[in-house]
């Protein structure tokens, strides 16, 4: 079992955890993820490793509270133990000096982008990060991203903070301004789809990190499968990063929606239980 060493709130529902996991810390590269399970009835959920420290023997996870499992995880405190933690999983991000790289992220994609921005910058890239959300209140990790990027552009749908517009508007703004050698995008599937369509227009090689449904995370079940370039791939072992221009995002969104109804009713149950507990 792995102990929670520290807990810090980035915002009301975004929590940064430092977790004791010396072996995973040692093997970790940017782009890797772990599978976490909370409680004996918990499900196995993938979370990207945001940072690791070999000296401290810890890994850092940034968790955004969205469903049953992330809510349970966010309820843990310093000194608590994570029931199950396994990793590092997936293929590491391919990092080299590409030149200028645009990192476009939003929503749940912000936390997993952090280590990639860091690694790209460390290998000499000029990193321009576009951080998007529906409204200003939902922008997370702004400070961390600003520190790590050469430039940070914030986009909100309603213009309540940063620039008004979608993530794609921010990316296009950069593309029109200067030469972009590569783009990395992480976020909701629909967002990645449109970023990908945009960069395809400009022939900019683009990597998307896919957040499909997973069960085991070790290639054993195929729940995470996607079609890339006409071939079925398993995100947990072949990915999570793929050439965005080859990913069938429509199919991915359809598959993600498959469990949404059940998940929502589960969340409902969980909330009811929690409420019952506090009453």
């Amino acid at each position, binding site marked *: 079992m792995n102990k929670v060493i520290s807990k810090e709130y980035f915002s009301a529902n975004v929590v940064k955890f430092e977790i004791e996991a010396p072996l995973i810390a040692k093997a970790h590269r940017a782009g890797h993820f772990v599978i976490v399970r909370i409680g004996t009835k918990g*499900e196995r959920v993938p979370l990207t490793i945001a940072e690791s420290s070999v000296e401290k023997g810890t890994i850092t996870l940034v968790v955004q509270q969205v469903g049953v499992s992330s809510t349970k995880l966010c309820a843990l405190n310093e000194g608590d133990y994570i029931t199950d933690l396994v990793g590092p999983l997936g293929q590491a991000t391919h990092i080299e000096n590409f030149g200028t790289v645009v990192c476009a992220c939003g929503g749940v994609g912000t936390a997993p982008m952090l280590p990639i921005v860091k690694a790209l910058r460390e290998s000499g890239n000029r990193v321009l990060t576009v951080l998007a959300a529906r409204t200003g209140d939902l922008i997370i990790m702004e400070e961390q991203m600003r520190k790590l990027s050469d430039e940070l552009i914030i986009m909100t749908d309603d213009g309540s903070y940063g620039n008004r517009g979608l993530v794609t508007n921010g990316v296009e703004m950069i593309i029109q301004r200067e030469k972009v050698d590569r783009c990395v995008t992480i976020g909701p599937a629909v967002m990645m789809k449109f970023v990908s369509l945009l960069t395809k227009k400009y022939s900019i090689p683009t990597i998307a990190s896919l957040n499909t449904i997973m069960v085991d995370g070790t290639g054993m079940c*195929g729940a995470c499968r996607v079609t890339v370039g006409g071939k079925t791939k398993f995100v947990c072992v072949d990915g999570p990063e793929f050439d965005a221009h080859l990913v069938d995002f429509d199919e991915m969104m359809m598959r993600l929606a498959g469990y949404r109804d059940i998940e929502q009713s589960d969340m409902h149950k969980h909330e009811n239980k929690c409420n019952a507990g506090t009453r």
Partner: protein
Amino acid sequence: MKAKERAEIRRVHMPEANPEIRSRNTEEVNLGLTAEMAVTEACRCLDCARPGCIEGCPVEVDIPSFIKNIERGEFLEAAKVLKETSALPAVCGRVCPQEKQCEAKCIHVKMKKEAVAIGYLERFAADCERESGQVSVPETAPANGIKIAVVGSGPAGLSFSGDMAKAGYSVTVFEALHEIGGVLKYGIPVFRLPNEIVDVEIDSLRSMGVKFVNNCIVGKTVSIDDLKEDGFRGIFVGSGAGLPRFMNIRGENLVGVMSSNEYLTRVNLMDASNPESDTPVLTGKKVAVIGGGNTAMDSVRTARRLGAERAMIVYRRSEEEMPARLEEVKHAKEEGIEFMTLRNPVEYSGNEHGRVSHMLLQVMELGEPDASGRRSPVEVPGETELIEVDEVIVSVGVSPNPLIPSSVKGLNVSKWGTVIVNDETMQSDIPMIFAGGDIVRGGATVILAMGDGRRAAKAMDKWLREQKFSTSNL
């Protein structure tokens, strides 16, 4: 009792749960023999001078000896005999394809009679011991301090560990999942193999000093080199055939189409059908399972239990060629499973939400025998059927888990991705690495995996003794 009298006793029938009721719950289907039934059945064994049954058993259980113990009413003694050769008797008694192994070689079969129910008796003895609370822990040799690592906690890894622990080695098993047991836990459903039974056998290994480390993937969390550095002198790879195959036909990525591994893992490992569990599972009213093996039978019977009104097996050959155990096919039929044989799916279509709604089946017929000796299915031109479904479970086989083969430099791997080892010693081209079970054979059986584990243990012990690190030098 005279041989003639023994031969006249009819083979016992396994008491079974009522199919109407059991197809709605997760209770075990086979209820087990009573002591009286077991003793009578044991009398049928003629205690042959050259017992064929032992040859038919991949781990060479001393079958006549345990059966005669049952006949004498020495049930615990019978269990002890089983444990001398098999690390998991209560498991084997439930899931082995006895009709193709020990029972196929029984003298009764040669006399055109039904074989002694060796599997039922094995289960009886193992269950008796467990229920008696007097589980015997096999004797272990004095600890020699030599560290041995095992990759994977399926039957191959467990049987290897048991034998090495008996020989005095310090054994650590690394398992990628959060549960110990491999397919026994995540694949085979509880109505066929209750989890408690697997746990008792694992506890028995624990009391022999075997250490288990879950959530640890060798090749990811730790490397083989890390293990060497940590002082492990021998490594046994029993990482199984975890990778599901798909057919690559149109519509296979629709919502509601999944591998049997996904379906069974959700239900068995993650307990998804329990409302308390956070893991969801899609359920269907009209469920088709593609395939004819044990995995297919387990999936279709699980679907029935989760409320499928129509639960169908779609298999491209005829029933005769089905690789599933006979008993599973019989049980499935009793539970109202439809068998659509000589049918092969060619395409799935979905509704506006992307949920599968129909499957198009190609009608097949049997042609010439293929390499496996089974008559190969060929398409009947132009004959197709469109069937309504809302869930499809693809159970057309698995490939070896690529993690170890891809992460260990110099390991010799076949074109199918299986680890190549010496047939007798199970030693790979890297001398300290031995392997067995599905990672060597592709999809096989529990008992073959266990047999591999045993042979590897024997050979590794011998190899280690021959090394300069031999026991005497420590």
